[in-house]
């Protein structure tokens, strides 16, 4: 049974507009040279976990920044829920605000502190709520950043290589934490990564960005929780790595 169903997406084949958390239509971005994103189109369903793979320089981060509203894009090319949140590779906590104030920052709801504390408890940081961010370990800081994103109850969660600068053990814990938080809250997720295992572990669907276009669009139909030792896992892994130009 073939678990990969490759759907090469051409600019014309748009799915229905209804019931999509994210929709990108013919998005082109260039910085003077050849286009970084070239007539790119794809969509993410509500509650869907999508991993975006690609080599460095393939435009992954540009796409995420555009979705996050940090880079400009023509409005007709993009539909993104207004409730979206970003977790970057670095935690990007304000060092002069205590952890819970970082989480509550910009939160325009009554009782923002209680919400912030609840979000911190969810990422198991309840013992560090009053700490200064620079005293946190790398994993703790990234969990705080995750809490800061979650507390906004996003319809779309953008994760820009959030585990890349963590050590291997911390990364595994973070991955399982993200998986359980996603299952509890069900936001649509776009995880930018260059770790094929991470993508296979977490995502419903894997996109591979090749030369500014979606080169591969693959549904991952493995049962959860997943393990790298599952038989289907390694087969998918080999195929994805091959598409990235790596012989495994």
């Amino acid at each position, binding site marked *: 049974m073939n678990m990969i169903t490759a759907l090469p997406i051409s600019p014309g084949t748009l799915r229905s507009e209804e019931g999509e958390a994210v929709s990108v239509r013919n998005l082109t971005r260039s910085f003077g040279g050849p286009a970084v994103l070239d007539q790119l189109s794809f969509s993410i369903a509500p509650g869907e976990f999508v991993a975006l793979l690609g080599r460095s320089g393939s435009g992954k981060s540009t796409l995420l920044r555009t979705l996050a509203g*940090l880079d400009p894009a023509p409005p007709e090319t993009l539909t993104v829920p207004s409730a979206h949140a970003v977790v970057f590779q670095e935690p990007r906590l*304000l060092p002069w605000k205590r952890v819970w104030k970082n989480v509550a920052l*910009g939160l325009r709801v009554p009782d923002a502190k209680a919400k912030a504390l609840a979000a911190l408890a969810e990422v198991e940081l309840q013992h560090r709520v009053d700490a200064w961010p*620079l005293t946190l370990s790398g994993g703790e800081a990234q969990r705080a950043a995750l809490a800061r994103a979650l507390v906004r109850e996003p319809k779309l969660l953008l994760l820009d290589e959030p585990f890349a600068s963590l050590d291997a053990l911390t990364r595994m814990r973070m991955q399982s934490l993200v998986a359980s938080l996603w299952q509890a809250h069900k936001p649509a997720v776009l995880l930018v990564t260059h770790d094929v295992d991470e993508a296979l572990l977490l995502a419903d669907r894997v996109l591979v960005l090749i030369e500014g276009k979606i080169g591969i669009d693959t549904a991952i139909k493995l049962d959860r929780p997943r393990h790298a030792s599952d038989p289907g896992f390694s087969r998918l892994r080999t195929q994805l790595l091959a598409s990235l130009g790596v012989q495994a």
Partner: protein
Amino acid sequence: MSGIALQGSASGSPAISTVRTKRRSSWNQRLRRAYVPLGILAIWQAGFALGWIPAQTVPPPSAIAIAAWQLAVTGQLAGNILVSLGRVAIGLGIGVTAGTMLALIAGLSRLGEDSVDPTLQMLRTLPHLALIPLMIMWFGIGETPKITLIALGSLFPIYLNLFAGIRGADRKLREAANTLGLSHFETIINVVLPAALPNFLTGLRQAFGISWITLVVAEQINASAGIGYLVMNARDFLRTDIIFVGLGIYAILGLLTDQTVRLLEHYLLAWRPSFLKDAAR
């Protein structure tokens, strides 16, 4: 799914005993630092007793202490210190306020930078003390020229440091604030200004230093009160001991203001790693 329990490292409250050892050793350290200055005083006094140092040139510490005591008892010391402190306080207040406003104008908008920065960069190269003759011609010999000079001297370190701090605020943090839905104004309040605060405090420390120097020069040219007046008056009566008292007071005031800024830094920048390390030990 969360089969792997996340066990955050314990909050790591430092053992009290280590804090105590730290305290004691820091006291020892402070005592150790006092040995050399105290030794110099002792040799100084002994040099006078043995007739090596003529009292007319350099009075012994004991004579300086007596002169200070007499000035204190007659109320001259406190009165003159207050006059000098008042000049610095008003001049510095004006200079810091103006420097801060100009830095905000230049730092927060390109238009502001273009209108303010070139002029200030040009004026900055002019030593403000060179304006003394003009100040006297314009404002006479009262308080106005002294306060104006102190204000001018303290304006530039504040402006330059705060401007650099505002422009140096981490772009990544500003981006993060943007994704959190903060408005431009909220980003300035929550991200840009706190990021520039360390630079502002560096500028404040420099401004204090410049203020004292300006005060010394301005008071010695013409004054009818203040520490500088006390010193110039003592020169006329060949009272070397009182001159030394004046020097000592300048030194102490400089030290005190430096400590004040240090205290401010400790309180306002409590989040910084250098201070955090102190607290964690």
